[in-house]
C-alpha cells in the first residue's frame, strides 16, 4: 500500500502505469475493439492512408492496420513478458547460488557471465534464431537467453550485500539450512531490484523483438506483431509513411510505459537502487 501511494505521488510513474494498464486492456479485448478482421486481406486496398474507412490505413496486403496493431498488443506484450520471465528464471537462481556460496563455483559462473556479456547481444540472439529457426517462441527464447547474464549479475550483487546483514547471520547461527536461508531471507530481499530490472527489460525485449523483426527473424506472418510489422513497413516508407509510423508509435509508447513504470517502481521500492540500475 505504502509503495503504491509513493508511486501515485510520482507523477511520471503514474503515467507509465496508466499506459501499461491501457495496453493490457487492449490486449484482453483486442477482438472486441478491432473494427475488422486483422487477417482479412484485399490486395486492391493495399497501403491506403488513414481514412474514415481504415482508421490507421492498411498494410501491403490491404489489411486493416488498426486491427492488426490492436491484436499485435497481445503478441508483443506476451513476447516481452515471456522473454523477461525466461531471463529471470535462467539468471536469478544462478546469481543467488553463485553469490551466496562464493568460492570456485562463483568464480566459474562469473567468468561464464563475462563470456556471455562480451559476446555481442544481438548477435547471440541472431544465432539462437538461426539455429532454432525464426518464430514467436524462438524469438522469446533468444531474447530470454540474452537477458539471463544481466539477471545473474544483479542478483549476485544484491545477494553479496544481503548475505552480510544481521538477520542472515542470525538465521545461520540458529542452524537454518542454506537453501532455506536463500528462499526465506535472501530472495525476498532481492525482489526490489528484480522487479525494477524486469520492467526495464520488458521495454528492451520489445525493442529487441523489433530489431529481430527488422532482420526478418521475428514472429512469422500473418501473426500481427509490432516488430515484424515495423520491419516490413521499411520497404514502403516512402510511399506509405503511415505504415511505419503507427507500429513504431505503438512500440515507442509501450517502451515508454515500461520505462516510466520501472523508474517509478525503483524510486518507490528502493531509492538506493538508483546508482545500480
Amino acid at each position, binding site marked *: 500500500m505504502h509503495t503504491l501511494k509513493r508511486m501515485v505521488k510520482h507523477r511520471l510513474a503514474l503515467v507509465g502505469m496508466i499506459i501499461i494498464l491501457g495496453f493490457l486492456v487492449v490486449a484482453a479485448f483486442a477482438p472486441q475493439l478491432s473494427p475488422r478482421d486483422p*487477417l482479412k*486481406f484485399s*490486395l*486492391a486496398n*493495399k*497501403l491506403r492512408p488513414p481514412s474514415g474507412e481504415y482508421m490507421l490505413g492498411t498494410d*501491403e*496486403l*490491404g489489411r486493416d492496420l488498426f486491427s492488426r496493431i490492436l491484436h499485435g498488443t497481445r503478441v508483443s506484450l506476451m513476447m516481452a513478458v515471456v522473454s523477461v520471465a525466461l531471463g529471470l528464471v535462467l539468471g536469478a537462481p544462478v546469481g543467488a547460488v553463485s553469490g551466496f556460496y562464493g568460492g570456485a563455483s562463483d568464480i566459474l559462473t562469473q567468468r561464464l557471465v563475462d563470456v556471455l556479456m562480451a559476446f555481442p547481444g544481438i548477435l547471440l540472439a541472431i544465432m539462437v*534464431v*538461426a539455429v532454432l*529457426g*525464426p*518464430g514467436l517462441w524462438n524469438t522469446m527464447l533468444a531474447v530470454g537467453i540474452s537477458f539471463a547474464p544481466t539477471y545473474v549479475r544483479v542478483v549476485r550483487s544484491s545477494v553479496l550485500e544481503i548475505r552480510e546483514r544481521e538477520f542472515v547471520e542470525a538465521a545461520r547461527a540458529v542452524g537454518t539450512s542454506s537453501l532455506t536461508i536463500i528462499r526465506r531471507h535472501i530472495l525476498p530481499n532481492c525482489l526490489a531490484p528484480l522487479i525494477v530490472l524486469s520492467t526495464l527489460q520488458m521495454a528492451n525485449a520489445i525493442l529487441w523483438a523489433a530489431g529481430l523483426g527488422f532482420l*526478418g*527473424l521475428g514472429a*512469422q*506472418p*500473418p501473426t500481427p506483431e509490432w516488430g515484424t510489422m515495423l520491419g*516490413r513497413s*521499411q*520497404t*514502403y*516508407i*516512402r*510511399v*506509405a509513411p503511415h505504415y511505419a509510423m503507427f507500429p513504431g508509435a505503438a512500440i515507442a509508447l509501450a517502451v515508454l510505459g515500461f520505462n516510466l513504470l520501472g523508474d517509478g517502481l525503483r524510486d518507490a521500492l528502493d531509492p538506493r537502487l538508483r546508482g545500480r540500475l
Partner: protein
Amino acid sequence: MARKALLLACVFLVGLAAWAAPKPGGEMVIGFGTDPESLDPNKITSAPAGMVLTHVAETLLLMTEDLKVAPLLVENWTVSEDGLTVLLYIRKGVFFHDGAPLNADAVKVNLERFRKATYAFLLFPRVNTIDVVDEYTVRFNLDKPFAPLIAHLTHNFVAIVSPKQIAELPEGKDILEPVGTGPFKFDAWVRGDYVRLVRNDNYWGDKAYLDSVVFKVIPSDATRLVLLETGQLHAMMRVPPLDASRVAATAGLELLNIPSVRTIYIAFNYQKAPFTDVRIRQAINYAVDKEAIVKEILGGVGGVSDAAIMPLVFGHAGQEPYTYDPEKARDLLKAAGFPSGFKCTLYHPTGRYMMDAAVAEAVQAYLAEVGIDAKLVTMEWAAYLAYLRKPQSEATFDMFMLGWGCVTLDADYGLFALFHTSEWAPVGSNRSFYSDPTVDTLLDLARVVSDPVGRRATYASLLTYLWKDAPWLYLHYEGQLNAQRTVAKDLIHHPREYILAHKAWLDQ
C-alpha cells in the same frame, strides 16, 4: 526564308549531334546491394560479382542485352556433325592488362582451372578434354552431345584471366585483383564499401569513355534510392517496386524496367500426400490470384508465369494460364477428397527475391480462402538451402518458394536440374522430388537434338506436359527495376541482372 529555315535545321542538327556525341572522362558510380564475394572467376557465385568481373575479365562468347550469342574473345566457332567436338577460333591481337597475349594456351589454362570451380558443371563433365589445336584454336571433346554448351560459354563465371596471373598464384590462394582483357582494369576494392575500376587504354575493341567506374555497396534498397535522388549515385539496381511511379515522375531520374531471367515458383513435395494428387496441385494453382500479386505487390514489374521458364528463354512456349477461380479450386479439392481443405506448411525465404515474404503471405491468405491452412515458415537463407537439400526420405516439407535464374537463356538450364529424376536432392536441384518418365525422356532428348527447330518443339511439348501436371504453383517471373540519373548515358541494363558501363558516359 527558306535559307533561314535550312540554316536553323542545320544548327539544330549540329546541336543534336553535339548532344548525342559521347563525352569522355569522369567517374560513374553505380549502386548495388551486395558486396562481391570474390573477383576470382573460380570462386564467384553471384550476379553482383559477375557484374563487376565482366568489366575486367571477358568471356569467350558474349550474351548481348537482347539475348543473342555474339563473338567476344572467341571470334567464331564450329560444332561437329555428331555434336562431340567443338572448335573455338580465338581473336588475335588481344592482350591482358599485364601484357600477356591471349592465345589458345591461355584459354586452356583458364578452362582447366575452371574444372575445380563452383560452377564447373556449366562445362564439365560433358566436356571431357580440351586440346590446343594451334596458337589460336581450341578444341572441346565431349562425351555426349550437349546442345547448350555454346550458351554456357557466355556465362560470366567462365571469364578469362591472364595466364601469367594464374601461374604466379600460390597454391590454394584466390585471385584478389583480376587481370583480364576487358575495357576496364582493376583499381581498388574496399570490402563492404566499393570496387573501383579504371579505363584500359590499350583495350582491343572500342575503348571506354569513362575514366573510372565505381560499384558501391548499399545493402538497403531504401537507402540506395535516397543516394540516387541526392546525386551520390548515377545508377542503381533494385528500386523498391512501389516507389517506381514516384521515381518515374522525378525530374533528372529515369526508371528502367528490364526483364530478368528468374522464375519464382512454389514447389510441392511431389512424393508427399496430398500433393501426389494432380487435382490438389491444380486446385492450388486456381486458388491464387497471380495477376493481383504481380500488379499489387510487385508493382507490375515482371509478369505472370505461363510456363516453367520465362518468355525470353530459348525453348519457351506459353501455356493457357490457370486463371484465378476459387470456386474451381474448391471443386477440385472436393473431388480429391478434401472438401474442407487441409493443413500444410509453406517455407519461403525473406529478402532474397523481390517482395518474397509479402508474396508468400498473399499466397497463404489466398489458400486460406479455399480452406487450405498453410503455415508460413521463413528461414535465413543458408539454413533454408540446407533444409531444402535433403534426401527424399528425410524431406518433411509440403511446399517451398524458390527462384531459378535461367542465366544461360537456354531451357536446359532452367528445366533439367529441376525436373529430371536423376537430379533429385541432395545430388542435384530437383528439391521437390519430381519424377515422371515422359518428362525425363523429353529432357534427355532435348540435350542431344542439335537442330534448334527440333529442340524448340521438344521443349514445347515438355512445357505443356509440365503445365498440366502442375508440379509447382506457377507464380511469376521477376523483372528488374533499375534507375539512373539522366546524366548517365548508354549504360546497359542486362537481363542477367547486370549494369554494364562498357560504353557509358557522363553528360555533364
